[in-house]
């Protein structure tokens, strides 16, 4: 018998050996779906403006820089400002993405990431700029995948990660984020999907918080209010 069969046989044998007395085990009916778990997860405001404000608040405590822009022109200007402030030499972004359009007027070296990009080149750029699949108000997280994030490395190898998102991408909570993933991709999920919650960090030395352990030291989220999807009154996020 190969290991697979013998492990499965042992599992079946073990499970035949009587059910356990633990109370939780008898609760058999587990309805899935967000309706069941929302009531105990951290609370999220019902209104969109409240959700934007929560995302801004979470970002601040996570040390994510959160910038809100009226439109794409404003987002381009924001990128130029960032570039000047941080002294960017070059940025990398996924080939064939809208990011290229946003960077048209921005004076900085540009690397379009594709199959042929070498990892040492990617490591040297000043920032990686990507889109995303969603922003999660509840946790202040960015959800991105190999598809929306220009592969696996672009959002983690450069020292600064900039995410460009639209208002319509903001979802209230984690259950909504998983619903979105399933609707958008199932059954052909990208091979890599990740929730990014703040810049890389560690507390491994005397539990002192240090940013930029292995991933980006800085995370900037630029939220673009694109036409048609945004509600009228948006609370302004605190200045970064």
């Amino acid at each position, binding site marked *: 018998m190969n*290991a*697979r069969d*013998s*492990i*499965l046989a042992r*599992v079946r*044998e*073990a499970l035949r050996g*009587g059910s*356990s*007395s*633990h109370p*939780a*085990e008898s*609760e058999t009916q*587990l309805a*899935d779906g*967000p309706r069941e778990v929302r009531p*105990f*997860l*951290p*609370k999220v405001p019902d209104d969109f403006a409240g959700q934007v404000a929560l995302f801004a608040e*979470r970002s601040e405590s996570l040390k994510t820089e959160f910038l809100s822009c009226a439109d794409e022109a404003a987002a381009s200007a924001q990128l130029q400002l960032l570039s000047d402030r941080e002294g960017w030499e070059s940025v990398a972004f*996924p080939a064939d993405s809208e990011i290229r359009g946003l960077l048209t007027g921005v004076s900085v070296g540009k690397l379009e*990431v*594709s199959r042929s990009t070498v990892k040492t080149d990617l490591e040297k750029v000043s920032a990686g700029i990507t889109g995303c699949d969603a922003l999660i108000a509840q*946790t*202040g997280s960015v959800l991105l995948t*190999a598809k929306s994030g220009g*592969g*696996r*490395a*672009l959002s983690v190898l450069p020292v600064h990660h900039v995410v460009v998102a639209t208002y319509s991408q903001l979802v209230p*909570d*984690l259950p909504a*984020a*998983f619903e979105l993933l*399933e609707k958008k991709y199932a059954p052909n999920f*990208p*091979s*890599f999907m*990740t*929730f990014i*919650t703040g*810049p*890389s*960090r*560690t*507390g*491994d*030395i*005397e*539990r*002192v918080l*240090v940013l*930029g*352990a*292995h*991933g*980006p030291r800085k995370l900037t989220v630029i939220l673009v209010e694109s036409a048609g999807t945004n509600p009228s009154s948006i609370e302004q996020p605190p200045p970064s």
Partner: protein
Amino acid sequence: MASSASQFNADATRMVGDLGHRQMVQQSLSGYQKARSSNAGRFQDWESARSRAAATKDEAIRHLDRYLEQFEEKLIARGAKVFWANDATEARSYILDLARAKQAKAIVKSKTMVSEEIHLNEALEKAGFHVVESDLGEFIVQLRHEAPYHIVFPAMHLTRGQISDLFQQKLGAEATSDPEALTMTARRTLRQAYIAADMGITGANFAVAETGMISITENEGNARLTSALPKTHVVLLGIEKILPRLADLSFFLPMLATAGTGQQLTCYNSMVGGPRSAEEIDGPEEMHVVLLDNGRTRLLADAEQRDALRCIRCGACLNVCPIFRNVGGHAYGTTYQGPIGSVITPHLRGLQSWQHLSQASSLCGACTETCPVKIDLHHHLLQNRRNAVAEKASPFQQLGFRAFAFVVNRPGLFAFAVRAMKCFSPLQRLFNATPADPAWPWTKSRELPSFARKSFRDLWKQRTS
């Protein structure tokens, strides 16, 4: 007494005497405690979350065979390879053969306790492979040739001064007392390792059956780099990591973060479901998933303690445990320290050699109370004690209990024995806490309670007469 037990006694005694060390551990953990309670407070109902998590894990365990098959099938469909390992030897030799076949010159690893469990690094290094631990804490203990101190905070026992000395010695770094500077030294060193590595090894916090994905939780980004850059990605995980549905992560991720580090969500929660697909830009060419049993089915067969397989290795039970806080992580001599380690190690590595850990407990129940998946930890410690005695009581224990039973079953004899002991107690006082004291094993480090002037039986008699 087995050697692991006497080793434990010696190490625990030494550590308990080290006040500086104890203070340091208490201090690190008090920060955790604060962060954790404020984030558990964010949950609208932490208790319901615990029940839901426990029930979901139980569902996975109850149908473990089916879910494992589903997990495997989905992964294979997406181009990953799945290897099943009965034990540590099989898992090690699969990974070793793979490293040889790929002619891996450099291997980078992100934190995985299962690899500690199977002693993977030693095996790889002995075979001539260069392995680098990339999690900062693991990197530090690897440089010190030490085992991780804690399943979540591997280097929590070290001061910045010790780490600075270590980096000076091993990496030629400048002396510094700044944790940030130390972290940056590690970052620079490890960057080179990621770029050079041709094989990356990670663990997994969850294995989603529904979609055939592993989920990795981390703060540093090292697991992301490890699963992004090298050509071959190896995932090593225990068969108990299964979750039925992808959406189950919507509460397991924030619960793990809250219980583990006191964060609302850990910095990176990544789901990986195969090697790079045809249309993707980057990612490994191959993904190998090693599913390890290594004693887990033995635990599964124990209906009484099966719930220990729910464990998500958050480390919360260690953090609140008065024993852990005083003897520290290394004294356990196990891969998994603290209450959960004391519960499962006898199942994984033999009851007689490891039952002493279940004796080292005040049974205060803090672990059970804090556990996010409601494992009945302190009762399992008690059951381990019972099972150990039932399986093989020492002649001393047998004799002791037989004598005790003989006496307490005879009221007259019992009353006589109590009175006799009372008479002897002033005599004992003369030798109290000296090696001549018959109660020396107890009195050398504790007070012997003095006899009450009147026994319960005396009082009872007075009351009824």
